[in-house]
């Protein structure tokens, strides 16, 4: 029983990373209907940049600067690469993000090499495990979960109570009407990408201590993030969060109680994606999109 709770706790921690990444994907999808396949690689890039910062400053400063850089990179990518293809066939922005995937991966590999690098955990949460009765939950896991919660709450407050947040929600719902109301849609899209990149950066920095910082660290993670986003519904931020947490827990439990010898987690993620997409494409919480003829 204790082991069960422990696994659930660990699962929630990894799940919060999936949730953050999924949230980033949903953020962009809601506002632009583009699935950003390069989300993971963007996160990976900013995490490497954070690693560079860490060599000359303390953790929190590096963290903060990395997020700033992420905002800038996200905005830049949207403005330069995505803007030209936002109208036109839906396939084109997808292909651009795929090109970005390859390019970013290669650039990071070129600059930093293929060896995994160590990445520190969130400082607050160092030290021995927290004990609740017979259950020992690692402080690091709590740290990850808390950090993710903080981000989600911040985003929720931003979108619900600020003018810009409201404008972004409006842009995601109806671009034409947003223009008529005086919203600069282009700026909102850029902001969407910037925020998404920032969220991804946080996810990357939380994940790096766990999975080791390397150029392929995000391949598995992004698959789970997509699975979470699809499960929750590509248009639902809440769905992404719940999906991520659920998947984290399920993955952990499956790994612990897995009867077979070899790992099956990626295969399970794949299965979830396919099953959800076939049975209920809008996911658990997404809205049904009407196909315009």
């Amino acid at each position: 029983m204790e082991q069960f709770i422990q696994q659930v706790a660990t699962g929630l921690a990894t799940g919060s990373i999936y949730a953050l990444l999924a949230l980033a994907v949903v953020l962009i999808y809601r506002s632009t209907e583009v699935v950003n396949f390069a989300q993971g690689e963007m996160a990976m890039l900013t995490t490497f940049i954070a690693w560079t910062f860490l060599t000359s400053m303390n953790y929190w400063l590096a963290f903060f600067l990395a997020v700033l850089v992420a905002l800038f990179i996200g905005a830049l990518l949207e403005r330069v690469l995505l803007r030209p293809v936002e109208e036109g066939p839906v396939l084109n922005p997808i292909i651009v993000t795929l090109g970005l995937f390859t390019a970013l991966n290669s650039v990071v590999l070129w600059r930093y090499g293929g060896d995994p690098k160590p990445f520190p955990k969130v400082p607050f949460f160092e030290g021995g495990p927290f004990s609740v009765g017979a259950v020992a939950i690692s402080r690091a896991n709590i740290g990850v979960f808390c950090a993710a919660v903080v981000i989600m709450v911040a985003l929720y407050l931003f979108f619900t109570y600020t003018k810009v947040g409201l404008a972004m929600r409006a842009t995601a719902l109806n671009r034409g009407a947003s223009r008529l109301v005086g919203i600069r849609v282009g700026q909102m899209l850029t902001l969407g990408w910037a925020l998404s990149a920032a969220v991804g950066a946080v996810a990357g920095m939380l994940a790096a201590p766990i999975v080791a910082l390397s150029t392929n660290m995000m391949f598995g993670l992004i698959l789970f993030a997509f699975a979470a986003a699809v499960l929750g519904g590509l248009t639902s931020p809440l769905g992404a969060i719940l999906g991520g947490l659920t998947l984290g827990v399920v993955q952990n439990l499956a790994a612990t109680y897995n009867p077979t010898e070899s790992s099956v987690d990626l295969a399970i993620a794949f299965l979830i994606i396919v099953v959800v997409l076939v049975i209920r494409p809008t996911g658990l919480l997404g809205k049904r999109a009407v196909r315009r003829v």
Partner: protein
Amino acid sequence: MVQSLLRPRVLGLALLGLVILGFPYFNTMFEFMSGWPFFGWWVDPFRIFQAGRFGVWIIILLGLNLLTGYSGQISLGHGAFVAVGAYVAAILMTQYDVHVILAVVAAGLFTGAVGFLVGAPALRLTGPYLAIATLAVVIALPQILKHDLVSDWTLASQGINFYEQGTPPRTPEMLEDMVNKDQWLYYCTIVPALIMTVLAWNITRSRLGRAFIAIRDTEIGAQQMGIDVALYKMTAFGVSSFYAGIGGALFVFSEAVLGPATFDIVISLTMLAVLVLGGMASVLGSIFAAAIMTMRIEIVDTLVKLIPFGEELRIDALRGAIYGGLLIVAIIMGPRGLAGGIRELAKVKPSAIIERVRSLRVAEVLRIGTQRLLQPFRRRDR
């Protein structure tokens, strides 16, 4: 009779045929040219091996083009089908001693069947959703290949190799004097490539091809026209994976080893990239794409030499960035790729070009040129 045989088209095809058939012997026939600046390249024996690979890529990319270019089903998982074909062929040949030709055909049919069935769940998925699902396939496949249930055949991480048997195919005894191993390998891949190219060409011009295009352009419209979208979508997947399977099986010839990571996400994305560059929805485009794919390392190496400080900057390690970058630029500028550009060029009459050029001054040309180049990037907020 002789008149019609001498028409340029026929002569051209005949010349092409001769070049294709005779290619492996160029290095011996034209050995004297090996020092020459341009021709030396063609005469290098390594080209024979490369040409064989070229043939394999043609088949693989034709398959991808039929699915993504013609039918509009974006599939990031093509690499997974190639891997399946490769594994099936390798397993049949190493563990069950199946004859080469049989193994290849079996690989193709098996993969085609798998693809056809995969098409069923894919029916309900469009655009980004399909992309996600196929991405999931290709990321999850290495793990599946290593799993216990199949590791008896796939030998898990270790992969399959042909060290014991020697890489097939072996030159039949009869011809051993005339055709050496490399040359035989070439023929074994080029001939299927030719057959599959002609087959693809026919498909694109047939009812099936038109149905594919209809589905790509307007799925609901296609349904209204009476096309059984479900069946044709599954067929698109089936045909495409058949090609992938054959390609994968032939690929196995030239590689001595095959592992779960041989066809991973990176190569799947590279395939898509070169296809967009070469030209989607065009057989010629697939051929260009295959050429780029075969030569990609050399192209990057040439770039390294051309760019100042290329070697110090280690541009060769940036090859992924180059493919990705080219892909992005290509899709922004216009997605018809090289083949499209050539078609455009072919439409224009030389006299018209000369006239136009003569009437413009340099400054104007520069201005119009840069304007068109930057057009996609201009601020478009409407």
